[in-house]
Protein backbone atom coordinates (compact mmCIF):
# COMPACT_ATOMS: atom_id res chain seq x y z
CA UNK A 1 0.00 0.00 0.00
CA UNK A 2 2.99 2.27 0.47
CA UNK A 3 3.47 3.01 -3.19
CA UNK A 4 0.06 4.68 -3.54
CA UNK A 5 0.27 8.29 -4.64
CA UNK A 6 -1.74 9.35 -1.61
CA UNK A 7 0.00 12.65 -1.10
CA UNK A 8 -0.76 13.95 -4.61
CA UNK A 9 -4.33 12.69 -4.49
CA UNK A 10 -5.00 14.32 -1.18
CA UNK A 11 -3.63 17.72 -2.08
CA UNK A 12 -5.62 17.76 -5.32
CA UNK A 13 -8.80 16.84 -3.46
CA UNK A 14 -8.05 19.34 -0.74
CA UNK A 15 -7.82 22.18 -3.23
CA UNK A 16 -11.03 21.17 -4.99
CA UNK A 17 -12.93 20.69 -1.73
CA UNK A 18 -11.79 24.06 -0.46
CA UNK A 19 -12.87 25.65 -3.74
CA UNK A 20 -16.29 24.06 -3.46
CA UNK A 21 -16.68 25.06 0.17
CA UNK A 22 -15.82 28.69 -0.53
CA UNK A 23 -18.03 28.78 -3.61
CA UNK A 24 -21.04 27.38 -1.82
CA UNK A 25 -20.60 29.90 0.97
CA UNK A 26 -20.21 32.81 -1.40
CA UNK A 27 -23.33 32.17 -3.48
CA UNK A 28 -26.42 34.25 -3.07
CA UNK A 29 -28.63 31.70 -4.75
CA UNK A 30 -29.32 29.07 -2.11
CA UNK A 31 -30.16 26.44 -4.68
CA UNK A 32 -26.74 26.56 -6.33
CA UNK A 33 -25.18 26.65 -2.89
CA UNK A 34 -27.02 23.44 -2.05
CA UNK A 35 -25.95 21.78 -5.28
CA UNK A 36 -22.31 22.77 -4.86
CA UNK A 37 -22.50 21.54 -1.30
CA UNK A 38 -23.65 18.19 -2.63
CA UNK A 39 -20.60 18.06 -4.88
CA UNK A 40 -18.48 18.92 -1.87
CA UNK A 41 -19.85 15.90 -0.04
CA UNK A 42 -19.21 13.66 -3.03
CA UNK A 43 -15.57 14.72 -3.05
CA UNK A 44 -15.32 14.17 0.70
CA UNK A 45 -16.49 10.66 -0.03
CA UNK A 46 -13.61 10.25 -2.48
CA UNK A 47 -11.19 11.46 0.18
CA UNK A 48 -12.45 8.87 2.64
CA UNK A 49 -12.00 6.15 0.05
CA UNK A 50 -8.46 7.33 -0.66
CA UNK A 51 -7.80 6.87 3.07
CA UNK A 52 -9.23 3.37 2.87
CA UNK A 53 -12.15 4.14 5.18
CA UNK A 54 -14.79 2.53 3.00
CA UNK A 55 -17.56 2.44 5.60
CA UNK A 56 -17.20 6.13 6.30
CA UNK A 57 -17.11 6.80 2.56
CA UNK A 58 -20.33 4.89 2.11
CA UNK A 59 -22.00 6.83 4.89
CA UNK A 60 -20.81 10.10 3.44
CA UNK A 61 -22.09 9.19 -0.02
CA UNK A 62 -25.47 8.13 1.34
CA UNK A 63 -26.10 10.69 4.07
CA UNK A 64 -23.94 13.69 3.32
CA UNK A 65 -24.21 13.80 -0.42
CA UNK A 66 -27.57 12.20 -1.04
CA UNK A 67 -30.20 12.65 1.57
CA UNK A 68 -29.05 15.86 3.20
CA UNK A 69 -28.95 17.62 -0.17
CA UNK A 70 -32.51 16.46 -0.76
CA UNK A 71 -33.44 17.81 2.67
CA UNK A 72 -31.89 21.16 1.83
CA UNK A 73 -33.78 21.27 -1.47
CA UNK A 74 -37.02 20.50 0.35
CA UNK A 75 -36.31 23.28 2.81
CA UNK A 76 -35.56 25.76 0.03
CA UNK A 77 -38.86 24.77 -1.54
CA UNK A 78 -40.60 26.29 1.47
CA UNK A 79 -38.23 29.14 2.19
CA UNK A 80 -37.50 30.88 -1.09
CA UNK A 81 -34.33 30.64 -3.08
CA UNK A 82 -32.33 33.82 -2.57
CA UNK A 83 -30.38 34.65 0.54
CA UNK A 84 -30.80 38.08 1.99
CA UNK A 85 -27.43 39.80 2.30
CA UNK A 86 -26.64 40.53 5.90
CA UNK A 87 -26.58 44.23 6.59
CA UNK A 88 -24.67 44.08 9.79
CA UNK A 89 -22.19 46.73 10.89
CA UNK A 90 -18.54 46.51 9.91
CA UNK A 91 -17.49 46.19 13.54
CA UNK A 92 -19.65 43.15 14.00
CA UNK A 93 -18.25 41.59 10.84
CA UNK A 94 -14.70 42.16 12.05
CA UNK A 95 -15.63 40.68 15.42
CA UNK A 96 -17.12 37.56 13.84
CA UNK A 97 -14.13 37.20 11.52
CA UNK A 98 -11.75 37.52 14.45
CA UNK A 99 -13.60 34.80 16.35
CA UNK A 100 -13.54 32.47 13.34
CA UNK A 101 -9.83 33.03 12.68
CA UNK A 102 -9.04 32.66 16.38
CA UNK A 103 -10.89 29.36 16.66
CA UNK A 104 -9.23 28.08 13.51
CA UNK A 105 -5.77 29.06 14.78
CA UNK A 106 -6.53 27.42 18.12
CA UNK A 107 -7.52 24.17 16.42
CA UNK A 108 -4.50 24.28 14.13
CA UNK A 109 -2.23 24.79 17.11
CA UNK A 110 -3.21 21.30 18.28
CA UNK A 111 -2.13 19.83 14.96
CA UNK A 112 1.54 19.04 15.83
CA UNK A 113 0.36 16.91 18.77
CA UNK A 114 -1.48 14.51 16.51
CA UNK A 115 0.21 11.23 15.73
CA UNK A 116 1.31 10.76 12.15
CA UNK A 117 -1.24 9.26 9.79
CA UNK A 118 -1.15 5.48 10.06
CA UNK A 119 1.41 5.56 12.88
CA UNK A 120 1.35 2.09 14.49
CA UNK A 121 2.51 3.52 17.85
CA UNK A 122 -0.29 6.06 18.17
CA UNK A 123 -2.71 5.62 21.11
CA UNK A 124 -5.55 4.63 18.80
CA UNK A 125 -3.58 1.87 17.14
CA UNK A 126 -1.80 0.54 20.21
CA UNK A 127 -4.59 0.04 22.76
CA UNK A 128 -7.78 -1.68 21.63
CA UNK A 129 -7.36 -1.84 17.87
CA UNK A 130 -4.99 -4.88 17.90
CA UNK A 131 -7.53 -6.78 19.97
CA UNK A 132 -10.26 -6.01 17.45
CA UNK A 133 -8.09 -6.96 14.52
CA UNK A 134 -6.96 -10.25 16.02
CA UNK A 135 -10.19 -11.44 17.59
CA UNK A 136 -13.04 -10.30 15.34
CA UNK A 137 -13.16 -13.47 13.28
CA UNK A 138 -12.86 -15.71 16.32
CA UNK A 139 -15.50 -13.83 18.33
CA UNK A 140 -18.15 -13.18 15.76
CA UNK A 141 -17.20 -14.68 12.38
CA UNK A 142 -17.45 -11.25 10.81
CA UNK A 143 -14.72 -10.30 8.33
CA UNK A 144 -15.61 -6.62 8.35
CA UNK A 145 -14.04 -5.36 11.55
CA UNK A 146 -15.88 -2.07 11.39
CA UNK A 147 -19.22 -3.80 11.61
CA UNK A 148 -18.17 -5.82 14.62
CA UNK A 149 -16.80 -2.81 16.44
CA UNK A 150 -19.89 -0.82 15.60
CA UNK A 151 -22.56 -3.32 16.54
CA UNK A 152 -20.88 -5.66 19.00
CA UNK A 153 -17.84 -4.33 20.85
CA UNK A 154 -19.29 -0.84 20.92
CA UNK A 155 -22.94 -1.85 20.87
CA UNK A 156 -23.86 0.72 23.49
CA UNK A 157 -22.56 3.58 21.40
CA UNK A 158 -24.54 2.46 18.40
CA UNK A 159 -27.68 1.97 20.45
CA UNK A 160 -27.43 5.52 21.64
CA UNK A 161 -26.62 6.74 18.13
CA UNK A 162 -29.81 5.14 16.93
CA UNK A 163 -31.64 6.77 19.80
CA UNK A 164 -30.11 10.09 18.77
CA UNK A 165 -31.48 9.66 15.24
CA UNK A 166 -34.88 8.91 16.74
CA UNK A 167 -34.72 11.90 19.10
CA UNK A 168 -33.63 14.18 16.25
CA UNK A 169 -36.64 13.01 14.27
CA UNK A 170 -38.93 13.76 17.21
CA UNK A 171 -37.32 17.16 17.69
CA UNK A 172 -37.86 18.08 14.06
CA UNK A 173 -41.46 16.97 14.36
CA UNK A 174 -42.11 18.98 17.48
CA UNK A 175 -40.61 22.10 15.94
CA UNK A 176 -42.02 21.94 12.43
CA UNK A 177 -45.25 20.01 12.71
CA UNK A 178 -48.27 22.20 12.14
CA UNK A 179 -51.55 20.84 13.32
CA UNK A 180 -53.57 21.08 10.13
CA UNK A 181 -56.87 21.00 12.04
CA UNK A 182 -55.99 24.17 13.90
CA UNK A 183 -54.09 26.23 11.36
CA UNK A 184 -56.11 27.90 8.66
CA UNK A 185 -53.34 30.16 7.44
CA UNK A 186 -52.41 28.39 4.24
CA UNK A 187 -55.78 26.82 3.63
CA UNK A 188 -56.30 28.13 0.03
CA UNK A 189 -52.99 26.56 -0.91
CA UNK A 190 -54.37 23.21 0.17
CA UNK A 191 -57.71 23.66 -1.53
CA UNK A 192 -56.49 24.62 -4.97
CA UNK A 193 -53.73 22.09 -5.09
CA UNK A 194 -54.97 18.73 -6.40
CA UNK A 195 -54.56 18.90 -10.17
CA UNK A 196 -52.29 21.94 -10.05
CA UNK A 197 -49.06 20.45 -11.38
CA UNK A 198 -50.36 17.49 -13.28
CA UNK A 199 -49.60 18.99 -16.72
CA UNK A 200 -45.90 19.16 -15.97
CA UNK A 201 -45.63 15.71 -14.45
CA UNK A 202 -43.00 13.84 -16.35
CA UNK A 203 -43.88 10.41 -17.59
CA UNK A 204 -40.22 9.56 -18.11
CA UNK A 205 -39.26 10.27 -14.54
CA UNK A 206 -42.25 8.39 -13.23
CA UNK A 207 -41.52 5.28 -15.21
CA UNK A 208 -37.78 5.45 -14.53
CA UNK A 209 -38.30 5.69 -10.81
CA UNK A 210 -40.96 3.02 -10.91
CA UNK A 211 -38.27 0.70 -12.24
CA UNK A 212 -35.52 2.05 -9.99
CA UNK A 213 -37.26 1.88 -6.64
CA UNK A 214 -37.50 -1.91 -6.26
CA UNK A 215 -33.87 -2.31 -7.26
CA UNK A 216 -32.85 0.35 -4.78
CA UNK A 217 -34.72 -1.42 -2.03
CA UNK A 218 -33.18 -4.77 -2.85
CA UNK A 219 -29.78 -3.16 -2.92
CA UNK A 220 -30.45 -1.50 0.42
CA UNK A 221 -31.53 -4.80 2.00
CA UNK A 222 -28.36 -6.32 0.63
CA UNK A 223 -26.35 -3.51 2.20
CA UNK A 224 -27.97 -4.12 5.59
CA UNK A 225 -27.66 -7.88 5.49
CA UNK A 226 -24.25 -8.02 3.85
CA UNK A 227 -22.71 -5.46 6.19
CA UNK A 228 -20.79 -8.29 7.81
CA UNK A 229 -18.69 -8.78 4.70
CA UNK A 230 -18.63 -5.49 2.86
CA UNK A 231 -18.90 -1.82 3.73
CA UNK A 232 -22.33 -0.88 4.84
CA UNK A 233 -24.76 -1.84 7.50
CA UNK A 234 -27.84 -0.52 9.17
CA UNK A 235 -27.18 3.16 8.75
CA UNK A 236 -26.24 3.11 5.08
CA UNK A 237 -28.88 0.58 4.10
CA UNK A 238 -31.52 2.46 6.06
CA UNK A 239 -30.62 5.68 4.32
CA UNK A 240 -30.85 4.03 0.90
CA UNK A 241 -34.22 2.49 1.79
CA UNK A 242 -35.42 5.88 2.94
CA UNK A 243 -34.05 7.48 -0.20
CA UNK A 244 -36.01 5.05 -2.35
CA UNK A 245 -39.26 6.18 -0.75
CA UNK A 246 -38.14 9.79 -1.03
CA UNK A 247 -37.60 9.15 -4.73
CA UNK A 248 -41.23 8.02 -4.91
CA UNK A 249 -42.30 11.21 -3.13
CA UNK A 250 -40.36 13.29 -5.63
CA UNK A 251 -41.29 11.55 -8.84
CA UNK A 252 -44.95 10.96 -8.07
CA UNK A 253 -46.03 13.29 -5.35
CA UNK A 254 -46.20 13.39 -1.65
CA UNK A 255 -49.86 12.51 -1.43
CA UNK A 256 -49.33 9.34 -3.37
CA UNK A 257 -46.87 8.10 -0.80
CA UNK A 258 -48.83 9.42 2.16
CA UNK A 259 -51.65 7.12 1.17
CA UNK A 260 -49.43 4.16 2.00
CA UNK A 261 -47.18 5.59 4.66
CA UNK A 262 -49.26 7.69 6.93
CA UNK A 263 -47.59 9.90 9.47
CA UNK A 264 -48.63 7.67 12.33
CA UNK A 265 -47.17 4.56 10.75
CA UNK A 266 -43.89 6.31 10.09
CA UNK A 267 -43.58 7.44 13.68
CA UNK A 268 -44.45 4.01 15.05
CA UNK A 269 -41.93 2.31 12.79
CA UNK A 270 -39.23 4.83 13.69
CA UNK A 271 -39.72 3.93 17.33
CA UNK A 272 -39.91 0.24 16.45
CA UNK A 273 -36.33 0.25 15.18
CA UNK A 274 -34.95 1.52 18.48
CA UNK A 275 -37.20 -0.99 20.23
CA UNK A 276 -35.74 -3.88 18.21
CA UNK A 277 -32.25 -2.83 19.14
CA UNK A 278 -33.03 -2.31 22.81
CA UNK A 279 -35.02 -5.51 23.11
CA UNK A 280 -32.13 -7.55 21.70
CA UNK A 281 -30.16 -6.14 24.63
CA UNK A 282 -32.94 -6.99 27.08
CA UNK A 283 -33.12 -10.50 25.67
CA UNK A 284 -29.42 -10.84 26.49
CA UNK A 285 -30.20 -9.78 30.05
CA UNK A 286 -32.83 -12.49 30.34
CA UNK A 287 -30.37 -15.10 29.11
CA UNK A 288 -28.01 -14.34 32.01
CA UNK A 289 -25.66 -12.13 30.06
CA UNK A 290 -24.67 -8.52 30.04
CA UNK A 291 -26.74 -6.00 28.13
CA UNK A 292 -26.07 -6.38 24.39
CA UNK A 293 -23.78 -9.38 24.97
CA UNK A 294 -25.05 -11.41 22.05
CA UNK A 295 -22.94 -14.46 22.87
CA UNK A 296 -25.47 -15.66 25.44
CA UNK A 297 -28.21 -15.85 22.84
CA UNK A 298 -26.77 -19.08 21.47
CA UNK A 299 -29.65 -21.15 22.85
CA UNK A 300 -32.20 -19.22 20.76
CA UNK A 301 -30.17 -18.49 17.67
CA UNK A 302 -28.63 -21.18 15.47
CA UNK A 303 -24.98 -22.03 15.84
CA UNK A 304 -22.58 -21.73 18.73
CA UNK A 305 -21.62 -18.67 20.73
CA UNK A 306 -19.72 -16.86 18.03
CA UNK A 307 -22.47 -17.39 15.47
CA UNK A 308 -24.94 -16.07 18.03
CA UNK A 309 -22.93 -12.87 18.02
CA UNK A 310 -23.04 -12.89 14.23
CA UNK A 311 -26.82 -13.08 14.22
CA UNK A 312 -27.08 -10.63 17.08
CA UNK A 313 -25.22 -8.10 14.99
CA UNK A 314 -27.61 -8.77 12.12
CA UNK A 315 -30.68 -8.20 14.33
CA UNK A 316 -29.25 -4.99 15.66
CA UNK A 317 -28.42 -3.76 12.18
CA UNK A 318 -32.00 -4.38 11.14
CA UNK A 319 -33.17 -2.26 14.06
CA UNK A 320 -30.82 0.55 13.06
CA UNK A 321 -31.95 0.27 9.46
CA UNK A 322 -35.64 0.54 10.33
CA UNK A 323 -35.13 3.58 12.51
CA UNK A 324 -32.93 5.37 10.02
CA UNK A 325 -35.20 4.59 7.08
CA UNK A 326 -38.35 5.90 8.65
CA UNK A 327 -36.78 8.91 10.27
CA UNK A 328 -35.35 9.88 6.85
CA UNK A 329 -38.79 9.55 5.27
CA UNK A 330 -40.44 11.44 8.11
CA UNK A 331 -37.94 14.27 8.06
CA UNK A 332 -38.22 14.61 4.30
CA UNK A 333 -42.00 14.66 4.42
CA UNK A 334 -42.19 17.24 7.14
CA UNK A 335 -39.67 19.47 5.39
CA UNK A 336 -41.29 19.17 1.98
CA UNK A 337 -44.84 19.67 3.17
CA UNK A 338 -44.03 22.58 5.47
CA UNK A 339 -45.20 20.66 8.50
CA UNK A 340 -48.67 19.87 7.21
CA UNK A 341 -48.28 16.39 5.84
CA UNK A 342 -50.62 16.97 2.95
CA UNK A 343 -48.72 17.98 -0.13
CA UNK A 344 -45.35 19.30 -1.00
CA UNK A 345 -42.39 19.19 -3.32
Amino acid at each position, binding site marked *: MAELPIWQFDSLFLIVVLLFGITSLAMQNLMSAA*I*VFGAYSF*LMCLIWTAM*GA*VDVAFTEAAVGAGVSTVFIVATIHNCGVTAKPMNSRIGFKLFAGAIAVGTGAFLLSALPDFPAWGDPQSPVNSTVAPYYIENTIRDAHVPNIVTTVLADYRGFDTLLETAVVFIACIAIYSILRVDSAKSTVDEPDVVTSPPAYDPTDSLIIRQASRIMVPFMQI*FALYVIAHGHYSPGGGF*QGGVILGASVILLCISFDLKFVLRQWTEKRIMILTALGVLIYASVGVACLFMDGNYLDYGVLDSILPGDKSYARYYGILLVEIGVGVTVMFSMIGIYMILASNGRFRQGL
Partner: protein
Amino acid sequence: MLLVLVRVIKGPTVIDRLVAVNVIGTKSIVLLLFSGIIFGQLDMFVDIALGYGLLNFIVSIAASRYYQHRRSLKQKGQPS
Protein backbone atom coordinates in the same frame (compact mmCIF):
# COMPACT_ATOMS: atom_id res chain seq x y z
CA MET B 1 -13.01 16.98 -14.46
CA LEU B 2 -11.30 20.34 -14.26
CA LEU B 3 -13.37 21.71 -17.13
CA VAL B 4 -16.53 20.67 -15.36
CA LEU B 5 -15.19 22.33 -12.24
CA VAL B 6 -15.09 25.64 -14.05
CA ARG B 7 -18.75 25.19 -14.93
CA VAL B 8 -19.63 24.46 -11.30
CA ILE B 9 -17.89 27.50 -9.94
CA LYS B 10 -18.64 30.01 -12.69
CA GLY B 11 -21.79 28.49 -14.21
CA PRO B 12 -24.12 31.35 -15.13
CA THR B 13 -27.30 29.56 -14.11
CA VAL B 14 -28.20 27.04 -11.48
CA ILE B 15 -29.09 24.46 -14.09
CA ASP B 16 -25.53 24.60 -15.45
CA ARG B 17 -24.26 23.86 -12.00
CA LEU B 18 -26.74 21.05 -11.53
CA VAL B 19 -25.66 19.29 -14.69
CA ALA B 20 -22.00 19.90 -13.91
CA VAL B 21 -22.34 18.43 -10.43
CA ASN B 22 -24.08 15.45 -11.90
CA VAL B 23 -21.18 14.93 -14.29
CA ILE B 24 -18.77 15.20 -11.38
CA GLY B 25 -20.78 12.54 -9.61
CA THR B 26 -20.52 10.24 -12.60
CA LYS B 27 -16.79 10.81 -12.86
CA SER B 28 -16.35 10.17 -9.16
CA ILE B 29 -17.99 6.79 -9.59
CA VAL B 30 -15.28 5.92 -12.10
CA LEU B 31 -12.63 7.26 -9.74
CA LEU B 32 -14.10 5.17 -6.93
CA LEU B 33 -13.85 2.06 -9.04
CA PHE B 34 -10.27 2.93 -9.99
CA SER B 35 -9.34 3.30 -6.36
CA GLY B 36 -11.03 -0.05 -5.80
CA ILE B 37 -8.69 -1.56 -8.37
CA ILE B 38 -5.73 0.11 -6.68
CA PHE B 39 -6.71 -1.26 -3.28
CA GLY B 40 -7.35 -4.64 -4.84
CA GLN B 41 -10.84 -4.98 -3.39
CA LEU B 42 -13.07 -4.11 -6.27
CA ASP B 43 -16.14 -5.89 -4.83
CA MET B 44 -16.33 -3.50 -1.89
CA PHE B 45 -16.01 -0.41 -3.97
CA VAL B 46 -18.68 -1.52 -6.39
CA ASP B 47 -21.15 -1.33 -3.49
CA ILE B 48 -20.15 2.19 -2.66
CA ALA B 49 -20.23 3.21 -6.29
CA LEU B 50 -23.74 1.82 -6.66
CA GLY B 51 -25.01 3.67 -3.62
CA TYR B 52 -23.25 6.79 -4.81
CA GLY B 53 -24.86 6.60 -8.24
CA LEU B 54 -28.33 6.07 -6.82
CA LEU B 55 -28.07 9.00 -4.46
CA ASN B 56 -26.58 11.20 -7.16
CA PHE B 57 -29.61 10.40 -9.29
CA ILE B 58 -32.01 11.30 -6.50
CA VAL B 59 -30.30 14.61 -5.83
CA SER B 60 -30.55 15.68 -9.46
CA ILE B 61 -34.16 14.59 -9.67
CA ALA B 62 -35.01 16.49 -6.51
CA ALA B 63 -33.36 19.68 -7.68
CA SER B 64 -34.95 19.56 -11.12
CA ARG B 65 -38.29 18.69 -9.59
CA TYR B 66 -38.01 21.82 -7.49
CA TYR B 67 -37.63 23.96 -10.61
CA GLN B 68 -40.44 22.18 -12.40
CA HIS B 69 -42.73 22.66 -9.45
CA ARG B 70 -41.86 26.31 -9.11
CA ARG B 71 -42.51 26.95 -12.80
CA SER B 72 -45.88 25.27 -12.63
CA LEU B 73 -46.79 27.34 -9.58
CA LYS B 74 -45.81 30.48 -11.48
CA GLN B 75 -47.87 29.50 -14.52
CA LYS B 76 -50.79 28.81 -12.27
CA GLY B 77 -50.42 32.22 -10.67
CA GLN B 78 -50.08 34.35 -13.77
CA PRO B 79 -53.19 33.65 -15.88
CA SER B 80 -55.63 34.18 -13.01
